[in-house]
């Protein structure tokens, strides 16, 4: 099979699966789930063939043409796309398999697996997209599938609200994204990713606003401050969905997109600073918020936010290059590229965060859908496999050396250290917080005694749920290994990521910092938190806890205030103007006025002959006036 056809197969397989499920298998939940998983498995296999046979290609055909606007449907399958494809395929397959067990008793399994398939289709579309229009199209589609899946428990008002919020907030980001695309299109005459790169290298001047507007899309999709409000709420969806969409893949699509348009940023470096600071703020802010959360998924959600901030910040740090004298001439050597580092972290994060979410899913499933960590505890004994894999995940995310998270986080810190010390400090602080809240979570869930009814009766999950956990745990261990970076197939993206051979200066500082933050954060949490059904921080230092809770709540408050007090009231005012002032007062008023005129006109016919004779007199005067030339 030609690679293009294979790619097409990969792309269309889940769509076909979704279509079949929607049309025929709505009521056959089991069949639907098998179909969906099978489709995912086949596509994963095909994806692996594509990636590891090292075939890279571009292909496109016109999708729509109007005048000078051509929108094409195309593949740009380079190393970056290959990496993303692998991530999506692995995590996707894992989640599909996990869902078999997790969603086994759900009444609307058909809809769920259909949604998963649509999501896979949309996500793969983003991965393959060779131009921004196409990317935008699938961008919207992942938004839709995210809406669909968050809304899975649709009888819950909170789920309905959360899905709505997620879609709308994403649309706000897409507003900028689309404007950026259109601007880019009119400025460069193309939105093809390869051609953009060529144009930029050809010296086209790029307005700073273009990459910034495009970044808006990433802000929405990757839930950066201030558009992060939707992600914690999105945890209303089934946990596997959170793992797949709201942790590993879709939210990472923002980062992927940034890496895709990296040439534009390179041409407008001023934009990068903005990106970086948004990332840093998100990283720190989300980490602070995570500390006060009591819902296991919310903790992970804020952790995801924080890690996404890390990636965005890494991207925003940009390229690090050094000018060296080589044989008398000067040449610039690219030492570190923010994009590569960000993608590196994206990959490792995808694995361990998916692992953590699936692990939490296993926990929730075992605890009969109890999500409050203060009602858990002591699960290590009851859920051994889950405990083990979850622990690996925690270790990976806090950056324990030799695990994947360590390498990727390290390279980000290194880049930050070289480029901007303040950012370095903030990111390091974030790392402290990360290990703090992750260990807190870990301890409260798994250690100590069972504090709740459901936790007491917790049971280990079935094989279909454990298998993905194990696979992902393995990946969380090895994915960051320097040898992965050296793989030829991902050279295009990982070339500038330091593979263990740290650059001379900064190496030690960064290494030590990494170790320190892990230990400081992890140990302090471990000893600080008691296995109790109340938050120790809230009990001991209520001031700090309150502050952090406020920090967490205020954007939501602002959002709610905006919706209820600004947007809806504005809508009501305009509605008043439209229906009362315009429709009633002006239009009906005019109609009434015309009616009055009509009554007046009718009243002319008074019925008295004398009056009529006066009309004739007036008529005579009128015609005489015309004859005399007065009129």
């Amino acid at each position, binding site marked *: 099979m030609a690679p293009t056809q294979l790619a097409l197969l990969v792309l269309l397989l889940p769509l076909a699966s979704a279509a079949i499920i929607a049309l025929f298998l709505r009521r056959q939940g089991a069949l639907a789930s098998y179909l969906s998983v099978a489709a995912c498995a086949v596509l994963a296999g095909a994806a692996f063939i594509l990636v590891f046979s090292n075939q890279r290609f571009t292909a496109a055909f016109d999708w729509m043409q109007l005048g000078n606007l051509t929108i094409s449907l195309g593949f740009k399958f380079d190393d970056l796309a290959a990496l993303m494809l692998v991530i999506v395929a692995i995590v996707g397959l894992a989640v599909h398999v996990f869902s078999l067990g997790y969603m086994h008793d759900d009444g609307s399994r058909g809809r769920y697996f259909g949604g998963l398939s649509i999501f896979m289709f949309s996500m793969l579309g983003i991965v393959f997209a060779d131009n921004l229009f196409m990317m935008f199209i699938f961008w919207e589609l992942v938004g839709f599938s995210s809406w669909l899946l968050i809304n899975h428990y649709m009888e819950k008002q909170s789920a309905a609200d959360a899905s709505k919020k997620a879609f709308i907030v994403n649309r706000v980001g897409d507003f900028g994204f689309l404007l950026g695309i259109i601007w880019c299109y009119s400025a460069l005459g193309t939105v093809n990713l390869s051609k953009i790169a060529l144009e930029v290298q050809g010296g086209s001047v790029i307005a700073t606003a273009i990459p910034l507007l495009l970044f808006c899309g990433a802000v929405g999709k990757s839930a950066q401050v201030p558009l992060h409000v939707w992600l914690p709420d999105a945890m209303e969806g089934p946990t596997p969905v959170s793992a797949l969409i709201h942790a590993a893949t879709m939210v990472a699509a923002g980062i992927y997109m940034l890496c895709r348009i990296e040439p534009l940023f390179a041409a407008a470096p001023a934009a990068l600073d903005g990106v970086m600071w948004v990332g840093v703020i998100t990283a720190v802010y989300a980490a602070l918020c995570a500390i006060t959360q009591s819902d296991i998924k919310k903790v992970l959600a804020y952790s995801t936010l924080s890690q996404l901030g890390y990636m965005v910040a890494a991207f925003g740090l940009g390229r690090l290059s050094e000018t060296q004298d080589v044989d008398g001439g000067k040449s610039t050597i690219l030492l570190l590229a923010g994009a590569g580092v960000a993608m590196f972290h994206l990959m490792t994060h995808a694995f361990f965060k998916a692992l953590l979410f699936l692990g939490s899913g296993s926990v929730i499933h075992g605890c009969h859908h109890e999500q409050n960590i203060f009602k858990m505890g002591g699960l290590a004994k009851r859920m051994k496999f889950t405990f083990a894999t979850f622990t690996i995940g925690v270790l990976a995310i806090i950056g324990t050396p030799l695990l994947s998270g360590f390498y990727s986080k390290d390279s980000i810190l290194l880049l930050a250290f070289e480029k901007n010390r303040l950012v370095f400090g903030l990111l390091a602080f974030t790392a402290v917080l990360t290990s703090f809240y992750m260990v807190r979570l870990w301890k409260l869930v798994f250690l100590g005694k069972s504090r709740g009814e459901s936790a007491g009766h917790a049971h280990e999950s079935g094989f279909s749920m454990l298998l993905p956990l194990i696979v992902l745990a393995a990946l969380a261990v090895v994915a960051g290994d320097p040898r992965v970076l050296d793989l030829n197939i991902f050279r295009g993206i990982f070339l500038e990521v330091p593979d263990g051979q740290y650059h001379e200066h900064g190496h030690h500082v960064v290494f030590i910092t990494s170790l320190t933050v892990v230990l400081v954060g992890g140990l302090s949490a471990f000893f600080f938190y008691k296995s109790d059904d109340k938050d120790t921080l809230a009990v001991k230092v209520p001031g700090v806890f309150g502050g952090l809770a406020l920090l967490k709540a205020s954007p939501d408050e602002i959002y709610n205030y905006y919706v209820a007090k600004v947007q809806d009231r504005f809508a009501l005012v305009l509605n008043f103007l439209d229906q009362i002032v315009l429709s009633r007062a002006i239009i009906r008023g005019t109609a009434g006025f015309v009616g009055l005129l009509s009554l007046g006109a009718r*009243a002319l*016919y*008074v*019925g*008295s*002959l004398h009056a009529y004779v006066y009309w004739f*007199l007036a008529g005579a005067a009128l015609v005489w006036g015309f004859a005399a030339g007065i009129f």
Partner: protein
Amino acid sequence: MTIGLNEYLILSALLFAVGFLGVLVRKNTLVIYMCLELMLVASTIALVAFSRFNGTLDGNVFVFFILTVAAAEVAVGLAIIVALFRKRGTVQVEELNALKN
């Protein structure tokens, strides 16, 4: 000063105006009708005067027709008034305004 066409025309116009005045002010339908006859006659004065001063006979012949028509009109008109009087018991204009608006 000789009496010329103008004087006859003025007479005709004045008679026309007086007839019109009657139509305007009188409340009795019968009198209104008389005044209308006056107006017709006023026109015939002008007609005859023109005929005389222009030296064509057609105007005079026209008067024949006008008189005949007027007579017919009067007959029909009076019949209507009588019928109305029989129904309503009045010939006053202001009481004959059941049709209005």
